[in-house]
């Protein structure tokens, strides 16, 4: 027998890490298959303590028998505390695969209460279309609502359609734009479960519902909706995706915001791979199809523009440009016949809009607008102009429009519109000029999982966003662009910029602190800890960093050498927050024991500690003048302490006990304190007056992190709901 030589343990260990294994893993795997010594060695490396392997082997007998009285009793107990979660309808057998739980047939309308799709708990059905059914479901881990679309059974049987469905849904998941419903997960299904994908749940109605109620929409609405759909299409086209099914049913109008989102990507494509049955098309009438789609010719992004044209036509006139009772009639009309002019059906439609619709509805793709971005910009320019005057303007050459926008900006009306150097408009949610409830002017969503931390760069308008499984995203909110990503698959718990903005420290669930050079995006240091790094702060000179871990250890690191200074010190049980004083002489830590400790940085010795509060203390922050530090935690109260003596100077009751204060941020002057709360709000406190000045609401999950921008005028917040919101701080807060 010819067995290759045994690899050394380090090489063997790489097999445990899917990413590290790499392409040369194959001969290694083969060797393991043949070599009992390495089989044992690999297992030992994996399991560490042999007791674990033993416990695993007895696991099958470790749960109560399926017919034990234990299970019904367990469900009763679960229901004791749980109010909103319906219990499963069947008692789960100890090791059943959740994916093989009997799956609801989408053709029937049985009650869905108690049903699970994967780990999600179905609440109810919310929609039904030719492609399948959409359910509202609950994500029990992340405490949020999601929408799950399950592919129709008739299509699910076709392996080509299934494969395409998953591939396209995965691609759509990668687009990540404000105007596209975010796709969180895609599942190919299997064992009786059809393919499904999980999307963000958007509360509101579809354009189809709205048109059923209103028939025709006001011009402003048509332009607003058209502009956002075109923007969503532009984002998708940039990623090489063609929607193929743009229609009012797939355009969602979010309740409570001005946002319009496009959904249902690539499904029409999947449908076309299924052979037409003898009864006709699987996916309903092709009222919104482009001629090239109807003729089954090769498609490009311009097909979506034709469909957009039909949607605009319908919004403007209340009628379809190519109506018909049978698919044949519709297809013939849209390929060959000219549509009735918009003005004939609705004379109130401005000429420029009718012209845009006509151009979008050109039969030949080369006669239409050539990109969705072009259409989006055009509509946006008109929309902005319409908001400031009652007449329509001829769209000016760029220079004149720019001057006009500067005028508007000076008038303070177009707050939030950003003019980039290239002269392109960057659209943003326009804040109302009048005071009203503050809403975020920019949101980063489409992230997988909660956002655990955010930090603001001291030198540029970029935020470092710590995500759950997508690494650190470097996000520019003004331009709504992720400028870079520091890759990481484990959750990022803490992120901090050095004072010169050149370094970024990232604490992760895998017990590591990574320090990056932001100019090159190179990893400079990889500092290992004994447990997850929950908190990190740089010293002012950027040469040291203090870390706090979940296991309750505080460590100081020398960033020139990458070595720890002395030994770590145990504190707090579990450390939640650390901060350096502005003069670098002290650093503060806080954690689960409800105390904050002020340490002498040079001697690494505690100077004093605050008395323990009820529940943990989750955040500790110095005021910019270094004379005071603030703590906040489980008991809902912010306390201010003298940084020299540790005496309590005052407190501010923000919320009640159990409504944790999770994070805090002072503005550069120290006058304002922003507090991220578990009750999903952000509170703004005027510190000298000890008074709450504003409450920012909008997040749908606990707010985990908050940072006030370096100009003191904006605030960024990250939340368990998976989004980062940018807010404008009402100036009145400072008075």
């Amino acid at each position, binding site marked *: 027998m010819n067995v290759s030589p045994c690899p050394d343990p380090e090489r063997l260990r790489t097999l445990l890490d899917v990413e590290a294994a790499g392409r040369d893993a194959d001969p290694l795997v083969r060797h393991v298959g043949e070599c009992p010594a390495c089989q044992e060695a690999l297992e030992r490396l994996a399991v560490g303590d042999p007791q674990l392997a033993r416990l695993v082997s007895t696991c099958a007998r470790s749960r109560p028998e399926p017919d034990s009285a234990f299970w019904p009793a367990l469900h009763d107990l679960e229901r004791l505390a749980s109010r909103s979660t319906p219990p499963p309808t069947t008692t789960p057998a100890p090791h059943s695969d959740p994916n093989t739980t009997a799956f609801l047939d989408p053709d029937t309308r049985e009650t869905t209460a108690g049903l699970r799709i994967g780990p999600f708990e179905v609440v109810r059905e919310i929609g039904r279309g030719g492609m399948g059914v959409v359910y509202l479901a609950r994500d*029990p881990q992340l405490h949020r609502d999601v929408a799950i679309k399950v592919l129709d059974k008739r299509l699910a049987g076709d392996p080509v359609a299934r494969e395409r469905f998953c591939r396209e849904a995965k691609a759509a998941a990668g687009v990540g734009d404000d105007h596209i419903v975010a796709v969180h997960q895609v599942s190919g299904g299997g064992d009786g479960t059809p393919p499904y994908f999980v999307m963000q749940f958007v509360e509101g109605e579809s354009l189809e519902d709205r048109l059923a109620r209103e028939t025709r929409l006001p011009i402003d609405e048509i332009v607003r909706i058209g502009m956002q759909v075109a923007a969503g299409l532009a984002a998708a086209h940039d990623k090489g995706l063609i929607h193929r099914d743009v229609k009012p049913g797939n355009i969602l109008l979010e309740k409570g915001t001005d946002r319009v989102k496009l959904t249902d990507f690539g499904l029409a494509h999947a449908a076309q791979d299924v052979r037409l049955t003898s009864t006709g098309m699987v996916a309903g009438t092709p009222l919104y199809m482009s001629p090239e789609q109807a003729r089954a010719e090769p498609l490009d992004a311009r097909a979506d523009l034709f469909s957009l044209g039909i949607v605009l036509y319908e919004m403007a006139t209340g009628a379809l440009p190519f109506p018909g009772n049978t698919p044949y009639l519709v297809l013939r009309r849209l390929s060959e016949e000219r549509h009735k002019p918009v003005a004939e059906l609705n004379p109130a439609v401005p000429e420029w809009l009718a012209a845009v619709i006509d151009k979008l509805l050109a039969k030949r793709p080369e006669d239409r607008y050539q990109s969705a971005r072009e259409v989006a910009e055009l509509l946006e320019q008109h929309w902005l102009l319409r908001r400031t005057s009652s007449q329509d303007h001829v769209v000016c050459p760029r220079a004149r429009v720019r001057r006009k926008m500067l005028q508007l900006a000076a008038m303070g009306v177009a707050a939030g519109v950003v003019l980039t150097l290239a002269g392109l408009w960057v659209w943003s949610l326009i804040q109302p000029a009048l005071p009203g409830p503050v809403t975020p002017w920019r949101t980063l969503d489409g992230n997988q999982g909660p956002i655990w931390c955010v930090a603001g760069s001291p030198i540029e308008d970029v935020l470092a966003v710590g995500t759950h499984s997508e690494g650190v995203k470097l996000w520019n909110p003004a331009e709504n662009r992720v400028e870079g990503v520091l890759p990481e698959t484990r959750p990022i718990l803490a992120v901090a910029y050095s004072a010169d903005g050149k370094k970024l420290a990232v604490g992760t669930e895998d017990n590591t602190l990574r320090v990056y050079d932001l100019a090159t995006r190179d990893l400079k240091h990889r500092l290992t800890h004994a447990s997850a790094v*929950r908190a990190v702060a740089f010293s002012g000179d950027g040469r040291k960093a203090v870390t706090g871990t979940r296991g309750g250890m505080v460590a100081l690191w020398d960033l020139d050498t990458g070595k720890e200074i002395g030994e770590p010190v145990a504190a707090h*049980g579990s450390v939640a927050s650390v901060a350096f004083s502005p003069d670098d002489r002290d650093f503060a830590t806080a954690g689960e024991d409800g105390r904050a400790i002020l340490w002498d940085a040079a001697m690494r010795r505690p100077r004093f500690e605050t008395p323990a509060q009820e529940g*943990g203390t989750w955040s500790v922050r110095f005021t910019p003048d270094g004379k005071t530090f603030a703590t906040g935690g489980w008991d809902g109260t912010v306390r201010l302490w003298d940084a020299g003596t540790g005496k309590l100077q005052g407190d501010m009751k923000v919320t009640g006990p159990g409504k944790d204060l*999770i994070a805090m941020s002072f503005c550069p002057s120290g006058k304002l304190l922003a507090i991220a709360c578990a009750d999903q709000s952000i509170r703004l406190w005027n510190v000298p007056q000890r008074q709450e000045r504003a409450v920012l609401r909008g997040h749908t999950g606990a707010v985990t992190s908050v940072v006030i921008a370096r100009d003191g005028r904006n605030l960024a917040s990250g939340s368990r709901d998976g989004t980062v919101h940018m807010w404008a701080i009402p100036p009145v807060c400072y008075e």
Partner: protein
Amino acid sequence: MESPVTRASLLLRLKDDSDTEAWQEFLRLYGPVVYHFGRKRGLQDADAVDLMQEVMRTVAAHANKLDYDPSRGSFRGWLFTVTRNKLYTFLDRRRHREQATGDSTTRQALQATPDRESDLEASWEQEYQQQLTARAMERVRPEFQKNSWDAFWLTAVDGVPAQEAAKQLNLSPGAVYVHKSRVLARLREEVQRLQSEE
């Protein structure tokens, strides 16, 4: 994954009766621990379930009044004390009842040599470790492809030899070992993480 920020000790979280997730997590881990602990003390299925329910109801009812001091021991040590005390009350109650009805199986259990404290504690700890592993397996399972998990399950739990498992799953024997080890490595992490929650 839960929020590291609000991950107070499990007991602290249980004080918040709207934290249904903490409660479910607690039940799924400790429910079986108490149940099996009861079974090992000689209780029948129904009686062990009763014990479990009484312990859990006590925790639920008094969660926000309990003055558990974290500096004086682990959460599970505290729960062991509660369970053991409940068990004795339980056995006493039953003893008085059985003396009246003469039920032989329970009497046998009652008359068995009372366990030494250290044996009880060791048994509790062992049960806890076992359930922790089982819970970790449940939590970690969705992270793996069906094939990888099956490779692990067949070899590590069902004791099927790797060559045989390889044939069943249409994998190479080397791949079976690698998948098994990856799952074990992940389990080790998850067990450590669950333990650190206290």
